[in-house]
C-alpha cells in the first residue's frame, strides 16, 4: 500500500437492479486506520455498497480502489476480510470455531489448504485474542450471539486483513459483548487496519466510529459521528427525526 493512499476509494459508483437504482453516483474515501460507520435504512444501498466492495456485485458504473490497488488484487493478497451478518450464516453447519478461523488463512495456504505450523499458530493466537480459547472446539451454533461474532472477528485477525467489512455486527449481541467487540475493533484500528461497519444501530455509532457515512442511495453526509448524527441530517436519510435508540 502506498503511503497516504486511502483504504477505500470509491468514485461514481452506480448499481441498478433492473429498474431500481440501489446506488447513485456514490463517492467515498476512507483513510487507513479509521473505524467508519456506514449508516442508512434498509434499502439505502448499504449492502449493495458492501457487495460491490467485496466484488460479489458488479456495479453498472464507477471505480473502486481498495488499499491503493485493484480490488481483485487486494482480495487475492488477503487484505480484505468480511464478517457476515448473523442471518447470513448457517449456524447449524458442522464446523467448529477453529475450522472457521482457519478459513481466514486459506488464501495463504497451498491448494489443499493444509495448515502449516505458522497457520496453526496464527489461528490459535487469533482465537485467544477474542477470548474463545476455551470454546475453540465448539460447533459455531453452540456459541452465544457475541461469541459467534468474535469467532468471525478471529477469522479476520487470523487472515491479517488490512480492511475489515462488518455487516450489522451488533444484531443479536448483548450489551456486554458489544463492548468487547468495540474494544477489539478499536485495537485493530490502532494497528493501522481500517474497519468499515454497516449498521442501522445509531446508538452504537458514537462509541465505535471515528467517522460516519449516511447513505440513502447517495452519500447524504460524511464526517464525525457528532456531525452526521444531527436531527437535520438524519431526517434527510431516515425521513423522520431520530429517537436516541435503535432505529429499526
Amino acid at each position, binding site marked *: 500500500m502506498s503511503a497516504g493512499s486511502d483504504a477505500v476509494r470509491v468514485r461514481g459508483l452506480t448499481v441498478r437492479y433492473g429498474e431500481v437504482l440501489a446506488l447513485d453516483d456514490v463517492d467515498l474515501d476512507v483513510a487507513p486506520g479509521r473505524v467508519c460507520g456506514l449508516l442508512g435504512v434498509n434499502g439505502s444501498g448499504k449492502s449493495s455498497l458492501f457487495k460491490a466492495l467485496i*466484488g460479489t456485485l458488479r456495479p453498472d458504473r464507477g471505480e473502486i480502489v481498495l488499499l491503493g490497488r485493484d480490488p481483485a488484487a487486494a482480495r487475492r493478497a488477503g487484505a480484505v476480510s468480511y464478517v457476515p451478518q448473523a442471518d447470513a450464516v448457517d449456524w447449524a453447519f458442522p464446523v467448529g470455531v477453529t475450522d472457521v478461523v482457519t478459513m481466514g488463512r486459506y488464501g495463504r495456504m497451498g491448494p489443499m489448504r493444509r495448515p502449516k505450523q505458522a497457520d496453526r499458530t496464527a489461528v490459535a493466537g487469533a482465537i485467544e485474542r477474542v477470548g474463545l480459547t476455551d470454546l475453540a472446539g465448539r460447533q459455531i451454533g453452540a456459541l452465544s450471539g457475541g461469541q459467534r461474532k468474535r469467532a468471525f472477528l478471529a477469522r479476520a485477525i487470523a487472515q491479517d486483513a488490512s480492511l475489515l467489512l462488518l455487516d450489522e455486527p451488533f444484531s443479536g449481541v448483548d450489551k456486554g459483548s458489544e463492548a468487547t467487540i468495540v474494544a477489539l475493533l478499536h485495537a485493530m484500528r490502532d494497528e493501522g487496519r481500517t474497519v468499515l461497519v454497516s449498521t442501522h444501530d445509531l446508538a452504537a455509532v458514537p462509541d465505535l466510529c471515528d467517522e460516519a457515512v449516511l447513505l440513502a442511495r447517495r452519500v447524504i453526509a460524511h464526517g464525525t459521528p457528532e456531525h452526521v448524527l444531527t436531527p437535520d441530517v438524519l431526517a434527510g436519510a431516515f425521513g423522520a427525526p431520530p429517537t436516541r435508540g435503535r432505529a429499526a
Partner: protein
Amino acid sequence: MTGVLEWVLAPLQFEFMLRALLVAVVSGGVCAILSCWLTLIGWSLLGDAVSHAVLPGVVLSYIIGIPFAVGAFVFGVGAVGLIGVVRRTSRVKEDAAIGVVFTGLFALGIVLVSRTPSNTDLTHILFGNLLGVSDSDIVQVLVMSAVTLAIVLVKRRDLTLFAFDPTHAHAIGLSPRRLEALLLGLLALTVVIALQAVGIVLVVAMLIIPGATAYLLTDRFATMLAVAAAVSIGSSVAGTYLSFHADLSTGGTIVVSQAGVFTLAYLFSPSHGILGRWRTRRAVRVPEERPL
C-alpha cells in the same frame, strides 16, 4: 450361527454377487462422501434433476455404441448448464428452471427409448441392474470413483468453504463460481457412478440420504463424512444381500435400507433426534448469553 454364516457366505459363491457387492460398496461410498456437501448446501433437487436428465445420454450411448458413462456425463453437465441459463436469462425462478429442464430431458430419454431396438432395457436404466453388471460397467464405475475421490480429497476444504461461506471465499480471492462448477461436475460424475447400482429414479436417494442421516448424528464435518460412508456402504451391502435372499429389487432394497437407517437417526440421534432431544432436554446446557 451357521445359519448366519451361510446367509452371508452362500451368495459369495456366485460371481455376479461379488460384482454386485463391489459396485454397491464403491458407488455407495462415493455417493455418501459427496452427499455431505450436497445436503449442507441444499442441492437435493438439483441432484434429482441431474440424475433424471442423464437418461437421453444413456440411451444415445447405447445407440452409438459408446460407454454409457460418456453420454450420461455429457447430459448431466449439460442439464446443469441449461438450468443455469434458463434461470439467468428469464424471469423463471430456480426451482421452476430445474423442473422444466429435468422433466424435459427425462421425457426426451423416454421418447428415444421407445424408438430404439429392445437391447436398451428401460427398466434396467430406470431401476438399476446391480445383479447383471458387466466387466466394462465395473471398469467405468471404478475409474470414475477413483477420479471423484481423488478430486474430493484434494479440494475438500475448498468445497466446505464454498458450502459454508461463499462470500468469504470471494473476499479472499478464491472463485466461488469455479468451486460451484467443480462440485456440479462431481455431482454429475457421481450420478453416473450410482446409476449402475440403483438406477436413475433412485440415484438421488444415494446422494441425499447418507449425508442427511449423518447430519442428524454429528456436529463435526469429518465425522459426518465417515458416518455417511458407513451408513451408505452398510445399506448397500445389506440391501444387496436382502435382495438376493428374498428376491427383491436390488436398488429398491438398498434405498429402503438407507431410509430405514435415516428413520432410526431421525428418532434416536442423541443430539438431533426427535426422541433423543426429548430425553436430554433437561440436561441441555444453557449458553451464558442467549442469541436473539
